[in-house]
């Protein structure tokens, strides 16, 4: 097992007592599912929730002064950062799977029809939103630690809302949206590609930020 994967496992153990809070997703999907919301909307809301929850690991790290633990283990700085990113993305992917399974279970129960492509579309759009929020948050947390950075928690959320509004207001940009809507496969691929680029850049910035903190 590589050191980054060991770090993922350590993050899992660190968050073990708080994993129950992810059960909110179950309630959330069931509630919105019964209300007839689309799977894309539900997945976007899941992405918001998991992005918000991803700050908890930094809070736990700071509360328990886990930098000393990391310093005592066979872990390099980049293992800690990469492990944290993998853990965060895994939390999102697992939450997405839970949401999808629940949603389609509910749809079957209610006798509603659904398109399989919607799963890819939901995954693409929600992962872009998740990556945009987390990609902005993580370097700040690595640089400042949870207590100093917590005022920043909601800024990425505001940034994403701002971007959505911008796309609606600026005419040139709304053309892009219209094009994407008519080419959903391109939309999914673009979202996933953009998510990867954002996460990668964010990871590189986080390494620099965490090194400077030392």
């Amino acid at each position, binding site marked *: 097992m590589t050191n980054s994967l060991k770090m993922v*496992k350590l993050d899992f153990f660190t968050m073990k007592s708080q994993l129950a809070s992810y059960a909110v997703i179950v309630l959330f999907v069931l509630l919105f599912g019964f209300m007839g919301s689309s799977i894309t909307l539900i997945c976007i809301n899941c992405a918001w929730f998991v992005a918000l929850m991803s700050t908890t690991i930094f809070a736990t790290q700071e509360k*328990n002064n*886990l930098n*000393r633990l990391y*310093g005592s*283990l*066979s872990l390099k700085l980049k293992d800690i950062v990469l492990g944290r990113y993998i853990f965060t993305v895994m939390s999102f992917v697992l939450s997405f799977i839970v949401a999808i399974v629940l949603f389609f279970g509910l749809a079957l129960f209610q006798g509603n029809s659904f398109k399989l492509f919607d799963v890819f579309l939901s995954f693409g759009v929600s992962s872009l939103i998740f990556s945009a929020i987390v990609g902005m948050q993580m370097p700040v947390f690595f640089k400042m630690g949870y207590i100093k950075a917590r005022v920043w928690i909601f800024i990425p959320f505001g940034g994403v809302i701002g971007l959505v509004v911008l796309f609606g207001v600026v005419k040139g940009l709304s053309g892009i949206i219209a094009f994407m809507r008519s080419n959903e496969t391109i939309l999914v691929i673009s979202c996933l590609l953009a998510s990867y680029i954002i996460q990668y850049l964010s990871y590189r910035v986080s390494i620099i930020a965490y090194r400077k903190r030392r």
Partner: protein
Amino acid sequence: MTDNYLELRDVRKRFTGFVLNDISFTLPKGYIMGLIGPNGAGKTTTIQLILNMLEKDAGEILVFGGNNVQNESRIKQDVGVVFDSSIYVDSWTVKDTEKAISIFYEDWQHDVFTDMVSRFDLPHGKKVSEFSRGMQMKLMLACAFSHNAKLLILDEPTSGLDPVTRDELLEILQDYIKNGERSVLFSTHITSDLERVADYITFINQGELFFTGSMEELLGKYRLIKGRPKDLTVTLEKSAIGLRKTDVGFEGLIGAKEAAQYKECVIDTATIDDIVINVSKRGQRND
């Protein structure tokens, strides 16, 4: 493997308002070294630099003969660390701690961990947050021993512990190094603990290295001098370290070689505490 488990050469780290300046010392295999100095002297910074938790500005740190940054992962397989308070997640139990920590060590021995937990009488059902400070320290020790650490680094492990637990820790450390293949770097400001177990002393004061060498050398180098006001000559006043004057007399630290010339004064052997207290007051560098 080299005979020196730890070597620091002219290590420097600058912060705003504090500089750890040109720290050099060597810890040979099979010995206990006490890292002493008043609060804020730079002991924890030195330990964090050794563990690469901080990046040094200059100098070289060798652990088991290898560069501590380039060989960090390899080195930490053989290093155990104990801090002044728990480094584990509050909600973990003993079992959770083993599960979380053991994955990082190639040579983790579950049987040794179980034995240490029983020996230290650590409760299985309680969370780390419910442990006393002594128990938390013992859990860190149990983890360090379970991956067969050859170098144990302790950062103020006895602060806040009762005398019985401190005594127990010292016995554990003596037992730990008895095969001659392990070493301990023990940072503390409770110097009476060191007088019992340490072979070497490194004394840092205000970020500067004041002394590094054997315990006997340090204790043999200084004497405590006391006398009446009339015995305090100008020469003595200049040469005494951390001189305290009152209406009825004076007290300070003086070099052992100089002490013989002050026959009218009371000359006592100095404890590590006496040396630390007097030097800290004057903040003087040893020559």
